[in-house]
């Protein structure tokens, strides 16, 4: 039996095959790659990008883009750390509110939601292209981060909080559990709900979707809101891992997440793509980063290689579409 490269099953699992080959290559070149310590390390490193990227997948499926996720991550992380460490003090009322770990996390996720909703509001209310609206938010949220932290990291957040980023549950790193949960939530949304179906329809043909009676603006608001929340979850993971919120946390994270989405086969023009693809895309980027470090490749060369991998993924995708 011969297997043609055009076989639908092979096409479908193309990125998975690429990932396998990549792992094979690194395990041949470095004896440190295929160790359990290293593999857990890779998964823990990518868990932040996975959270951001599944949110980004929804945005891109809808033919949108969210450039603000890195800054939203930075701001929500700073607020989370600030609340944990200093609480909220209202001097005029002589009132002080302290925050538990859960409370601080919830507030930071709500702030992520609010910033995402603001993106969606600008995009739908004023018909501003998502690229521009979220570019503005990229600057705004970063500025807010600097104002809030005054440019100084907020550190020493307590062991309980640190556990989220560094702990292990049932032999698996806690952040990996959290990213799996986020993937499952978004997977459920896309596969099992009308909300998910409407996202695909809007990305495929917004006008036809509107004429079918779909409330486009509501869906868009929700999607950008979710993208903001996912960025905030990523922020919690980063902060607890370092036990410190850095003012410049999340800078250029939007690029890694868009790369994961694109490598995973989601079309930037919307309507086509899967959450599973994005997860594989994020893993490919993580493995690539890790493998190149193990091989002692200079960080500058790593960027060059990553860029070419993104190009290659999109070119292969394009060629498949033509056939």
């Amino acid at each position, binding site marked *: 039996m011969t297997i043609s490269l055009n076989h639908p099953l092979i096409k479908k699992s193309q990125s998975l095959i690429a990932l396998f080959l990549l792992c094979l290559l690194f395990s041949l070149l470095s004896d440190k790659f295929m160790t359990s310590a290293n593999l857990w390390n890779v998964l823990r490193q990518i868990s932040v990008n996975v959270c951001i990227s599944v949110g980004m997948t929804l945005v891109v499926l809808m033919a949108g883009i969210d450039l603000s996720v890195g800054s939203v991550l930075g701001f929500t992380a700073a607020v989370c750390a600030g609340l944990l460490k200093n609480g909220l003090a209202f001097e005029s009322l002589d009132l002080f509110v302290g925050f538990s770990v859960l409370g601080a996390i919830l507030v930071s996720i709500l702030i992520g939601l609010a910033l995402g909703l603001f993106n969606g509001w600008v995009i739908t209310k004023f018909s501003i292209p998502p690229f521009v609206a979220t570019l503005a938010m990229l600057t705004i949220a970063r500025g807010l981060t600097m104002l809030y932290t005054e440019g100084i990291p907020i550190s020493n957040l307590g062991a309980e909080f640190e556990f989220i980023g560094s702990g292990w549950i049932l032999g698996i790193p806690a952040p990996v559990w959290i990213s799996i949960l986020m993937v499952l939530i978004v997977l459920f949304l896309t596969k099992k709900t009308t909300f998910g179906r409407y996202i*695909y329809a809007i990305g*495929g*043909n917004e006008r*036809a979707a509107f*004429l*079918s*009676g779909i409330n486009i603006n509501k869906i868009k608001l929700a999607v950008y809101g979710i993208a903001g929340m996912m960025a905030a979850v990523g922020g919690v993971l980063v902060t607890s891992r370092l036990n410190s919120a850095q003012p410049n946390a999340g800078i250029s994270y939007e690029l890694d997440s868009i790369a994961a989405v694109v490598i995973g086969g989601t079309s930037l023009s919307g309507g*086509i793509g899967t959450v599973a693809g994005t997860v594989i895309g994020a893993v490919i980027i993580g493995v690539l980063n890790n493998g190149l470090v193990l091989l002692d490749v200079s960080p500058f060369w790593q960027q060059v290689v990553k860029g070419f991998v993104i190009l290659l993924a999109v070119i292969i995708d394009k060629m498949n579409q033509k056939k």
Partner: protein
Amino acid sequence: MLQAINISKEFPGVKALNQVNFTFYPGRVNAILGENGAGKSTLLKILTGVYTEYDGEIKLNGETVSFSNIKEAQNAGIAIIHQELNLIPELSVTQNLFLGREILTPLGILDATKMEIEAKRIFEKIQLNVSPKTLVQQLKVGEQQLVEIAKALLCNANVILMDEPTSALSDKEIDNLHRIIFELKKEGKTIVYISHKMDELFKIAENYTVLRDGNSIDEGEMKDTTENDLIRKMVGRDVLIDKKCTQSQFENTILKVGNLNLIHPNDKKRKLLHDISFELKKGEILGIFGLMGAGRTELLETLFGMHPANSTYSLEINQKNVLHKKPKEAIENGLAFVTEDRKTEGLVLGMDISSNISLTNLPVSGFLEPSKEKNASKNYIEKLRIKTPSEMQLCQNLSGGNQQKVVLAKWLATNPQILMMDEPTRGIDINAKSEIYNLIKELAADHMSILLVSSEIPEILALSDRILVMAEGKIKACYLAAEANEDKLLKSALPD
């Protein structure tokens, strides 16, 4: 002379063309007939260098040719005028005309003057009275088509392929096009003409080729054949279009429109619709006839809540006053709208049939019900005879007629009281057409009320119980089916 010898073309799972043979003669109009999906578009794409992989041979004036891209076909003198026009609206007619073959000064700078003079010369030849500086977006559809023909003439095409050139034209524009085709014929150009309009083909074509399911069925001269004969060859069996309306008693008013006005979105002084008032009865088919630009589409759009900011009207559905600010509200009040353009407004082409049909009626709970969706779409596939291997087929892989049926299914699935249809059979083949006619009549017999907009007089006459005629945004006349005829409709539809 353009000849094809044993042309075959296969797509995954489909044989689009199977050993097709034909000869197109210079100085004649050569008609290609066939239902949608018969292989006409594939054939055109091979002749113009879009598809480069195929079996068989193409001979131009006795020499075997093969084009590896569109430019090569153009250089060999083959030009195509597409059904959907390929002009850039934001550029001027001259810029469009010379796109890709601009005239440059010796310094390599665009020579605007020279190009405009040349454009003027060609426009005069085809009697297109527009300034070379006019933007394409300011032209009517008929004029845009003439620009496409000018483009073909500019590259000295000897073979001009026309894919349903008259589907969007008014009668006057059609006459003008036919006159130009006649001139081109006299100059010895080979015209290849695809159209679903039989009377038109008998008027202008000399030769015909019939395709069916990718096979060439017959070739010959138009003077030796009849309309029924050609239809039989295209469809493979006799098609009877029953011209008589099912008579039923219309008593209950379901829709009452009063003083509907619509102003132009960019020019508040211009009115697109003036004081439109009419009633629609339960189970009635109300035809709305008019020429392009009469405001028929805008009327349906306004009723469907697509122009909330620019329209004023009173609207009663089942004696209840309503106002539609968006399509969602119109749908909730029992309206459905089969739009004119199924590709840009009707379907999400990249989604499967099942998802498209259920898009208007997904469960309010927010959770998908896959088995229900599957059964409903299978039901419609059977009922409307949608030709497809399964309900999971992507809509982009369906032929025009089948796509239109999916649009219909999607709206029928909302259980509408009032079905509005805008050119429901535009660009689809005769067989699917008659199926849709029968369906419309069945729906009306089942007490659904139907607003039918069409530019085809035979279609309006065959289906409507009553006919409104519109011109320049106003209702000009109203006829009962029994008292209407082609002359009356046309006369009323002409602008003052």
